[in-house]
Each structure stands twice: as structure tokens, then as C-alpha cells.
């Protein structure tokens, strides 16, 4: 409608530099480091639906299919040599074992020809049953270190997940809440990628002490682009 609305719809990702390493905060919620030919995805929470179903909440059994097709799209786009799944790849320890055969094959097809690392998460501390790839507690590539839970103290070049960050702004009396990448330029916490994963506001106590607030940005995921919002604009809740 207006030029503002048109601009808001133009596809755009955000390139930022973490510990000297150039990374793309992709609008679909993955991180890509072109110089390392590395794609990072966090908190897939595969088989969350069936995990709930075991407890009597019969959520639609399509979350794994959805998450995998989103993942396939970004992998196809970047065709990365290396992939890191940054923990909580499965919603629970038996998730990989429950993975229906059709999805197992789809996942294996995505993994084929790449170096694939499963970083252990709190939901899935063990290697995923019957799947290729290396399971690691954490991994260091270039100037970056990748682990599931962010370290309590600031760590230069740390890429983590676990917290499922989202941010909220209030503009013209309206509230907009979106998943986001959270970064102060020194470390970055990635948004959760799974279809059923909820999110936690970056102003929550859980993030306390992780970031230098002066340089903090929430890279909020719009429908077709990333919006870099400074900490001062953010609202709790």
C-alpha cells in the first residue's frame, strides 16, 4: 500500500559480524556462515506432537513433517557443506526412535553429502537413535563456538539456542511479538525452528547477564524479512 508497507514485504536477511565471523540471520530462522559454508539450526523439537500424545494431548501429528519441509527449504537454498543442529533436535530422548520411517528417510536425504553435527540438548542428551551424523556436546568452528545452552558468562563468538527467544514491540498502540535472533555482536542466541516450539521474551530473567545491553539487537522475524530492533524499543511480556 504505502512504500513502508512495500518495503516491509521485500525479502531481506540481516548480515552481522560475530567475533569477526560474518553470519547471515536468515528470515526463516536459521544462521548461515558463508565463509565456513555452515548452516546452523536450533531447537527443532522433532516429534513434539507424539511426545504430547503420549501424555494424552493429541496434537496434530504433522509437526515433524512441517519442520522438516521448512528445513529442506533452507538447506536447498544454501546447500551447505556443514550443518549444525544446535540441540533439542528431538523433543524427548525417545523421539528419534519414534520418528516414522518416511521422515527418517527424508532427514537422511537432507543429511547426505554433508557433515552433520547433532549438538546435545537438554531434551535430547543422547545421540539420536539410528541416525547418521556426529553427536557432540559442543563444537568450535572458525572463531565461533556452538553449544545448546548459552554459558552464564559472556563468551565472545558463542552461538547457542535453548531459550527460544522472541521480542515484542508496541507501535501505535499495537503489540507485535515475533521470534528473533538475540545478539549484542559478541554472542548470538538463535530462535527455535520447530513447528510447535513456543518462545520466551528476551527481556525475561532467563537472559539476565547474557548480553551487553548497550549493543543489543533483537533480529525479529517478519513474514518476509528480518527487522533489527534495538533493545530500547523492546517490551516485556
Amino acid at each position, binding site marked *: *500500500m*504505502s512504500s*513502508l*508497507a512495500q*518495503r*516491509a*514485504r521485500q525479502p531481506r536477511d540481516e548480515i552481522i559480524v560475530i567475533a569477526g565471523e560474518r553470519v547471515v540471520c536468515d528470515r526463516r530462522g536459521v544462521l548461515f556462515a558463508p565463509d565456513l559454508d555452515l548452516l546452523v539450526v536450533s531447537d527443532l523439537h522433532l516429534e513434539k506432537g*507424539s511426545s504430547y*500424545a*503420549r501424555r*494424552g*494431548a*493429541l*496434537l*496434530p*501429528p*504433522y*509437526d515433524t*513433517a*512441517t519442520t522438516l519441509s521448512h528445513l529442506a527449504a533452507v538447506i536447498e537454498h544454501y546447500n551447505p557443506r556443514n550443518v549444525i543442529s544446535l540441540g533439542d533436535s528431538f523433543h524427548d530422548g525417545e523421539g528419534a526412535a519414534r520418528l*516414522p520411517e518416511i521422515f527418517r528417510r527424508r532427514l537422511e536425504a537432507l543429511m547426505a553429502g554433508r557433515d552433520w553435527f547433532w549438538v546435545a540438548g537438554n531434551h535430547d542428551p543422547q545421540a539420536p537413535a539410528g541416525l547418521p551424523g556426529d553427536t557432540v556436546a559442543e563444537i568450535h568452528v572458525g572463531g565461533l563456538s556452538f553449544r545448546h545452552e548459552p554459558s552464564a558468562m559472556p563468551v565472545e563468538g558463542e552461538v547457542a539456542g535453548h531459550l527460544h527467544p522472541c521480542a*515484542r*514491540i*508496541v*507501535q*501505535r*498502540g*499495537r*503489540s*507485535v511479538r*515475533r521470534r528473533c535472533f538475540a545478539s549484542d555482536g559478541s554472542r548470538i542466541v538463535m530462535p527455535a525452528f520447530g*513447528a*510447535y*516450539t*513456543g*518462545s520466551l521474551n528476551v527481556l525475561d530473567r532467563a537472559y539476565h547477564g547474557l548480553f551487553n545491553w548497550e549493543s543489543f539487537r533483537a533480529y*525479529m522475524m*517478519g*513474514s*518476509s*524479512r528480518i*527487522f*533489527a*530492533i*534495538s533493545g*530500547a*524499543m523492546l*517490551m*516485556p*511480556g
Partner: protein
Amino acid sequence: MNDQSRPEPSEQSAILPEPFLKWFAGRGWQPRAHQLDLLARAQAGKSVLLIAPTGAGKTLAGFLPTLVDLANRPKRRPGQARRGVHTLYISPLKALAVDIERNLGKPVAEIGLPITLETRTGDTPAHKRQRQKLVPPDILMTTPEQLALLIASSDAPRFFEDLRYIVLDELHSLVTSKRGHLLSLGLARLRRFVPGLQAIGLSATVSDPDELRRWLVPQDLSSRLWGGSAQSAGVEITPSADAPPERKTPMADLIEVAGGAKPEISILDSQERVPWAGHSARYAIPEIYGAIRRHTTTLLFVNTRSQAEFLFQELWRANDDNLPIALHHGSLDVSQRRRVEKAMETNSLRAIVATSTLDLGIDWGDVDLVIHVGAPKGASRLAQRIGRSNHRMDEPSQAILVPANRFEVLECRAAVEANYIGAQDTPPLVEGALDVLCQHVLGSAVGAPFHADDLFKEVRTAAPYAALDRHTFDRVVDFVATGGYALKSYERYARIKLTKDGTWRISHPRVAQQYRLNVGTIIEVPALTVRYVREGRGMVARGGPALGKIEEAFLETLVPGDTFLFSGKVLRFEGIRENECFVSNAPGKDAKVPYYGGGKFPLSTYLAEVVRAMLADPRRWKQLPDQVSDWLRLQSEKSILPKREDLLIETFPRGGRHYMVAYPFEGRPAHQTLGMLLTRRLERAGARPLGFVATDYALAIWSLGDMGRMFGRGELPLGQLFDEDMLGDDLDAWLADSWMLKRTFRNCALISGLIEKRHPGQEKSGRQVNVSADLIYDVLRSHEPDHILLQATRADAAMGLLDVRRLGDMLSRIHGRIVHKGLEQISPLAVPIMLEVGKESVQGDADDTLLLEAEDMIKDAMGTQ
């Protein structure tokens, strides 16, 4: 019930036992004809619907059959088994159940009847519930949710085996909601336990009493065809007028008590200038205050809670005599509401400002004047609200309508006329919701193993589900069992399982526990407790008194330092911590008034028609205040006034933009939807629309392109722009992504049991539920668009979105009747809506635009690119 002063002929009083006659006589009263009529019919085994205005002794009438029956009951001999519940009383409000217990207790005690009566609500302590199961009272007063819990228990058949009557109060209000659907299913179950159960419905006046009459009695096909066994349940088989004679519709008997004296309704004829737009009615405050001073007790009704807050504030500003004026609305803290109700009861208030929380029939005090501020939006609503005044059906009620703006003057006039001719515009009943049925099916299995065939038959006896087909029912059972997905991957996690004997049983005791925690159809909007802290201490301070609850969605739009009106005070927003919102006093400041989701009604179709007719007919203008009829006359000179069935479209330039104003009079929600759809079309046509704003009466769209010229030159024919096909693809595309459908889905998911409101051992906050419901909706919609829950969601949206249906009716009505008037400048009729332009923030789907604005703002401030 406290009002039996006027003697009436009572040939049938013979059926009243002696102690009753004495009790009536002791008060100088006589039983009223309709009370005795109802008693006679009940004693003849009939189910009965009693329609009567407030103050007609409706409650006593409803209970008379019970009281007489129990009075004649032989004493229980020692050793004889305890008797079960004799009469169930169901009301939509907990408060009403408590109120009735108190009011009914009085005559029971005074007549000296050996009858026990008790309430059972969500507030009833566990030990009392347990005791009630062992030693049931004769009369149990409860809510639809509690009934659902009672029947989902293995001892339910025994608990209810002595049940004779079920009294359903405020039936007109119960039946229109999902609570009513749940209740109808509960009623069907009770009838299976007790085939002879008689239902007594109490209702205010409705437009179609037959709908309620059917609701009270079993609707099974067999009785419809042959009249057979249903007779025993007190059913009168009445051939309905337009049905062939062999298709008989079972209906309860009807007793209708005509309204007493006609109410005296006037429209405030203000000396002040009635404003063009707005909803505050600030201009009329001195005149309203004057009326309060002249009366003993005044009830002031408004349509929204924010209006209530505003009016209360303004009245106190004018309150030089320090009159006791109170505020009452649903968001206030319970203790505060109880204090106000108590004060009402003891007649220690001079005025009370209220929203719909006081609509239902709670008997309070001696109100001698009702003032309705703002247009009543519906004729039936107005009638019920005015009914609050006096409470004596033989004296005329006094009411004053205070229109807040000029269009409301027309609407008030229409409502007054409607009231005099007794027109009713209560909404028609809708088919039973499928999410409610899902909940009921699970509850059935929790109660006892069931055969699908039997349950299907039973469900179809409930009026809202009379047309349910077997295929849909089976899909519901499938949903309850394994989620009902095309992908059958949850068989091993089934909640109910088909066993060898052909019955469905719950698979685990945990399922029963989950059901009990999640029963009911009331979905609370996520709300935070508002709590006082000392000024400036902000988030550090803790624990002042709680003032009530406010919707989270509103609070989320505030930033610390914002002020708003709540609980009659101007408050400063300090911040949110967990489930509490901290506020401090902000004396003397201007407040940003809260707007709430609750309490907004669109203009009823009926009133809209009358308003259109009034506009079209100058002869009727003389009933209007001069300033309003002058306004209309000016409009007919400068532009035109549309004929009754026409749609007027005006276009004019203003401030470098081009405006189009349409006057459909279909209510704000319908106009909102229309605005959304029209801007999409205008954008495609190259008119470059910038935004729109909607009121109850009109819709204004502004654009960069000259719409007037496009219409005039036939580049964009108006007929094409307003073609009905906009309700097809455009609507679907917009709806699928709209927050409205997501919220509807969330409600369906919670009611059907897909998502739990509460899980054993953990409390879920509203927000957590909300997030996951949205995600689930997206996933389910892309994988299984025909899933039963999405079907239920769409049905709900179509019903709830009355506006879409209204829009459809309007578009077909105006076909070929669109009148375009190209103007050089704004017309008198357009002034009210043009004053709203600019108040509206941005349009619906612009979240990403807001994000970009926020991003740009920082870039501008920091001087970065």
C-alpha cells in the same frame, strides 16, 4: 417474588395446598394466574416454558410445582433409603444461583416446608460436594458446568434417580451460547436416566418462543414421527405451522405473560449541542446528574466497560452533593462487586453505573429510573435493561436514553419505536457446536462405557443437535479417541478405546482426571490482576490491594507511565511482573481510557432497518431534536439522503487525499470486514488506498488515487467493486490468516480437549496456551484443512461473525441500488465518520509495517543508514 400485591382470578387455586394459601394470604397476596397455570400443567406431566417480564414472580412460578410436590411428599420412614435430588435448578450465573437460594429459602421457611436447598458451584468446597453426593438436597442449584461434572460420574444414574423437575433460569441467555449446547447435552443425558423428567424454562421475551419450547423436550425422530414414548416426558406434540402434518415437532407448553404497563421511555432532549461523533456523552453529564438527583435510585447502563469507567469518573466530577454513586462491571475485583451489590440490596446507593453484568435477573433494590447512555444497539437488549427499573410489572418503568452522538439520536429513536411495538431482535439459535460435542463424548466415556449407537440417539434428542448426522458424530468419536487425523499414528495413545463388548471406554484413569480439570465452555481471556504499588516505586514494590483484572491484550499496549481509567480511578501503569500488573495513583491526570474486548455490541439488523427508513422519510424527522433534523435537511441539500434500500456512496477530496464514504448501517464489525475487503480490491484496481475507518453506521476509505473519478468514468464500476463475490476468495484468503480465526480455533481446541486449559499438577498461563494454539492452527491448516476441528472453527467463525452474513445480505440487497454522489467537499452526513479518521491507528494486517517503523525510528535517531 416479593411482589404479589395485585389479586388475580384464581379458579385453579384448589391445587395449592393449604399452607401455601395461608402464606399468600398472610402477605395479602394471591397467587398469579400464570403461577397456577404453570403448576397445573406441571402436575399434568407437561414440560413448560414460561415467558414473563421481570417482576412477574417468575422464579416462584418455576419452583411452585417442586414446592407443592415436596410438601405433599410422605415423610421418610426410618430405614427407608435416602431420597435423591428432586429438582435441579440451573442458572447461567453463580451469583444468580446464590441469589435464588436466598430468595427461595425465605418462602420455604415461612411456609414451613421440610425442604433442603443447596448450591453447588465452582466455589463449593470439596467436603460439601462430597457430602452432597451422599446426602443430596431436595433442590440443588447449580451451573451447566457443574451439571456436566455430575453426569460424568459412574454414580450419576443413582444420584439422579429421584429427579422430577429441572428448572432452567434465564433460558434465553443460556441457549445462545456454547454453554447452552453443553447444557442441552446434559439435559439429554438426564432424560435417559429419568425418562419422565419435566423441564421448566424461565425466559425473558424472545422473538421465537418455539425455539425454546423445542429446546426443553426431546427431539428424537421417532417422537417427531409417531409422538410415541415422548408423551410420558410431558411433551405436547404440536404440528408446526409450515411443516407437513406427519412431521410433528415436540414442544413444551408455553405460558406467556404479557408485559405490564408500557415503559415510559424518553430520549434526552438536551439543551446542549449533541456531538457529531464519539461515545462519551460528556455533553449530557449535568442533565444526567440532575435526573439522578430527582430519583431515588438510578441504574445507568452503558455498552462497554471503558464507557462505564468514563461515565463514573465524569459523574463524580459533577457530584457536588456527594451522592453515593457506584460502579459495577465484570473486570472489577469480586469483593468490590459484592460490596456494591450489597449496597444495592440495602438501597443505600443513589446511582450505579453498570455494563451487561447487571443485565441478568438479579433482584436488587428499588430502582426507579434507568438511564441508558449510548445507543442500546438492540431493541430486546433495551427492553431487558429497562425491565430492571421498578421491578413491579404493573407500574410503568421509567427510562431515559442518552445518545452520545447524532447517529445515536436516530438509533435511540428507532429503539424507542421498536420498544413500543414490542419488536424483538434476539439472535436466532444456532446448531450445536462440534467442539462441545467432543467434550461431551469424552465426558460420557468418563461416566460409563457407552455404545456409539445409543449415544448418537441420545445426542440427537437435544434440540441443538437434532440434525446431527451419523458421519459427523463418528468423526467426533474418532477425534476424542485418537485426534481424528487422516494420519493414523496415535492409535496407541488413544484416550478412549472400543472394547470387545462394543462399548467405548477410557483407556486410563488419567483421562478422567484431565476431563474434570477442563470441563466447561467458558474460555477466559488471558487477564492480569491489577495491583496497587506506591507511586514511582515501580517494579520494586510489592503487594498493594488488587483492583480487579484487565485483559492482557490491552495491558500489552501500554508502556510504563501511561495512564488509564480503571475501577473508577486514574492509574499509572508501572509494569508487568508474572501474572500481575502494577499500577500507582495518577491523580488529576488525563487518562488513556482502556478499551476492552468485552461488552461491545453491533447495531442490530432490525434497528439498522428502522434507522435507514427514518433517514429516507423526512416526515419522520419531526420526532427528532431540531439540531438533528436540521443536520439531515442540510445533507439533503448538499448531497443526498439514500432511499431505504439504497446504498449511498459519497466521494470527495480532502487534505490531499481522496475519500470514499459508504453508509450501509450494518454495524461496525461488518463494516470493518467490508473495509478490509474493499481496500484489497481498490489496491488491485490501482486506486492506491491508504487506510479505512469503520463505525456502526458508515465506512470511510481514503486513497491517493481519485476514486470518485474512477467510479464516474466507469474505470471502476461500483457494482463490480461491491460485487458479492468479494465474500468468496478474498474473504477466504483474508480470514485464513486473520487473528480472528486463530482465536476461534484456540477456543475450539480448548473446549474440544485438544489443548488442555489445565493439566493435572500444573497451571498453564493463558499466553502459553495461546502461542501453541496458533502454531497448531498453522500446522493443521496446511496438512489437514478438513479436520473436524477446523470445520468446527469455520462454523463458529461464520456464526460468531454475524457480520459476514450481514455483509452478504447487504451486498445482495444493494445489488443495482448503489447511488454514487461525487462531491467537491465533505458532506454533513460524512462529518461523524471523518472525525474518526486519524483515531484509528493502522489497519489489520500491518504488523510487519510496524516492525519496520520501529527499526526506522532507531536508524533516524542514531543517524545510521
